């Protein structure tokens, strides 16, 4: 298993990250944006776990960080979904482009 190396993990993580960012930037549906955020977080998680595997100095910390990110993602999703629900109640839509009340 060791012959696989760390690069494929980086590539996968970068791919996932870019997918996430593109998703955030292009989706008009708020749920879709939220999914993009999940992708970005998980890209980071892959990085962390990969470091935990390949860097002895990072063995335990990487795992703990990853767990932390999962918990954080859950919390963030809860808050974001509550916001979206509220937004839907007020505007009858989840289109993020129509949410421009904070325009300068």
């Amino acid at each position, binding site marked *: 298993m060791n012959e696989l190396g760390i690069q494929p993990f980086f590539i996968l993580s970068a791919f996932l990250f870019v997918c996430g960012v593109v998703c*955030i930037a*292009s*989706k008009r549906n708020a749920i879709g*944006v939220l999914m993009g955020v999940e992708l970005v977080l998980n890209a980071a998680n892959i990085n962390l776990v990969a470091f935990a595997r390949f860097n002895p100095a990072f063995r335990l910390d990487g795992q703990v960080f990853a767990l932390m990110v999962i918990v954080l993602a859950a919390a963030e999703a809860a808050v974001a979904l509550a916001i979206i629900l509220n937004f839907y109640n007020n505007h009858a839509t989840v289109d993020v*482009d129509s*949410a*421009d009340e904070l*325009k*300068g």
Partner: protein
Amino acid sequence: MFDVPGRIYVVATLLPLAAFVVLLIAGATRSFYRPFRKQGGFAGSMYWICGGDKPLKTGAYLATGCMAVAAALGVYGLVSFLADPSEGSIRASRWAERIDWVRIGPLDTSSPPEWERQRAADTTRATPRLALALELGYKIDHLTAVVFAMVTVISTLIFIFSIGYMKDEAHETYEDHLVHERVGKVGEHHGDGHDSHSAAAHHGYHRRGRFGRFFLYLSLFCFSMLNLVIADNLFQVFVSWELVGVCSFFLIGFYYERPSASAAANKAFIVNRIGDAGFLIGIVLAWSYCGTLNIEELTRRVRSPDRDSHNTYELANQVIRVNATPVVGDAIPEYELPPIEEAGTGTHVLLFPLAWPDPTHFHGPGYGKHKDKSFEVPAKRDYLSYGVMPYALFVLMGIGIFLGCMGKSAQVPLQTWLPDAMEGPTPVSALIHAATMVAAGVYLVGRCYPLFAPEVLLFIAYIGAITLFISATIALVQTDIKRILAYSTCSQLGFMMLALGVGGWIAGLLHLITHAFFKALLFLCSGSVIHGCHHEQDIRKMGGLWRKMPVTAFTMLVGVLAISGAPFLSGWYSKEQILSAAMGYGLEHKRHILLLVLPFLTAGLTAYYMFRLWFLTFVGKTRDTHLAEKVHESPWVMTGPLVLLAVFSVGVAWGWPFWDAEASYLGHVLKESQPAFVAVQFAAEHHEAEHRHLTAGALALLLAVSGAWLAWWFFGWRQPAESEMYRPGGPGYRFLYGKWYFDELYDTTIVNPTVMLATVAAAADKAPTDKTAPPYVTLPTLDGILNAMAELFVVVGRSLRAVQTGRIRTYALTLALTAVAVLGILTALAK
């Protein structure tokens, strides 16, 4: 209490303060509970107890009672001080005390053991302080005791007089016609002013009477004045000095609804600040070089001791000047006496130790066999070693202290406030602006006399001579009864300053006391006249009043005779001494002959203008018929003090034999506290004065009689017609009537440029709101610059707000791109 009889004076000083505090609290309580006056209960009754709607007279009686007790204590203190048989240090400890108020340096506990030993051995001196402290203290000597008794007695009489004079203020509403007249003059024309009263009778400005407030201010004034008199250090003097200044301000502006009164109050306060700035400079110089503000210690620091431990000293009580000697390296700087033929010159003044390292054996500086000729001055100052002070700064210190006195005592060029101060009620003019506060300047010069270099004394003499002459010439032509007296006060204060400057220490301070009595008398008489004539002050309208108000007329005649120097009245003794001192000085120093000519000339002028005042007011027939009908004599509460003051004006300076001006008992009492050096420094002048004093007296009398005769000829015998008096005079007359145009000069040189500068500053600060303003206000203003900066930020912000689209996708993209860009930059930098 009884083993320190000096505390009588502390009690007497605090009594008026107690009256002040009670009146203040009562007034504040009354105002506080005023909203509840219609309700009953505690709040409502507090309002009625503390005064209610109508001003209570109780406060005035309380203040007068406190002042009367203070006067009794003052006189008792004077008698027991004079009768005190103790001598030297025991006497000093019985009549002086001092405590630390604010201590800046460490206490004596950190002093070296050697010092403790010496202090234990040296019981003859007051304990010198090792560290700096602001102190409170009092010191009673003959001068203080006499001045204290004078102030309290005159104050009491004036308080009593005020109860009568200010009785209009005790009404629920007081009608101030002058406020109306000033406002009315813009709209309606009163002609020559004859009928102004009938027009204004029903339209005066109405307000509540301020009976209590008047006595409140007077009490505070008396406390401050008494505190000034008993103070033993310059700091305490300065505090009281400012307090009397502010009381003067309050009382000049007592009728503050009148624009002229509030302007006069401001003028008095501001002009006095100019003098006080100088005073402060003097105090700071004394503090930083001598390390103490106690006047007695300052004297011991700058003047050599009476005697050394061998009881011989040829340079006793001198200001000793020394020269610096060249110093090599870090050695302690040394100073030495100049060669004996150049004695009295030198760049520095030697400051003496307050205690000698060995009190039983010391020599002090001098040219004798065992004397010290050179001195080490350690960098760290203490009171066991010599110090030095540059002579220029020593002179500056004296001039600075005298500047304060010039402001308070209204000496040229700071005299302009005193005549305007007559806007205040007449008892105030009598008490503050004639008898006591303005004399405080003279008193302080007398107190700080040992701190003045010969140059400063000459300066004082010239200022006094110029003042006495200028003020007397102005008084010749004035027509307002109080203004004549105001200029006469300036002039008499000039006499006192002149006397002090030419070495007549006793003469100057004796005149202070006698002048206080007869000038208070004159002012109260003028107050009685004004009261009787229903606030008419123009002597051109009066005349023949002696039939209507005989007591006022004859007591005033006593005052006029006293101030003119009629023999055997109090003014004669003091003025004769002043003139002979001036004559002695003028003949001894021919270059300063002006100091002889001016006072003699002015003695004649004084008699002329005072008799002119008296004849115009009381003799002949009343020129304003309207006035003649309503004139009446004042009630006994006003004439009683007049009679008492007249008695004092006659006899306060008497001695035995009374035909000898030098035999004045008061003069002998004052001589006890004359600084010791005066007799040495002015020995030749005093000798000359002694020699000439009959000549001086005869000449002064001759001039006074001719002045009085001229006044009688013009105004008593050859009664001028009314029209003649309103005729405009020639240029000389107008020059004098315009008070030498001092006010105009100051307006042109100081006031107007200042106002102009302020206008320019205001214009530079603020965008113009007045479109008709002169062109310079359209220059770029500070307001404009600041507004332009604010405008810039508004423009930048407006353009930046476009970035905030409010779209979450834009933000995310921007975030991502920024992250990429930052990573790219970091990567590029890492290579």
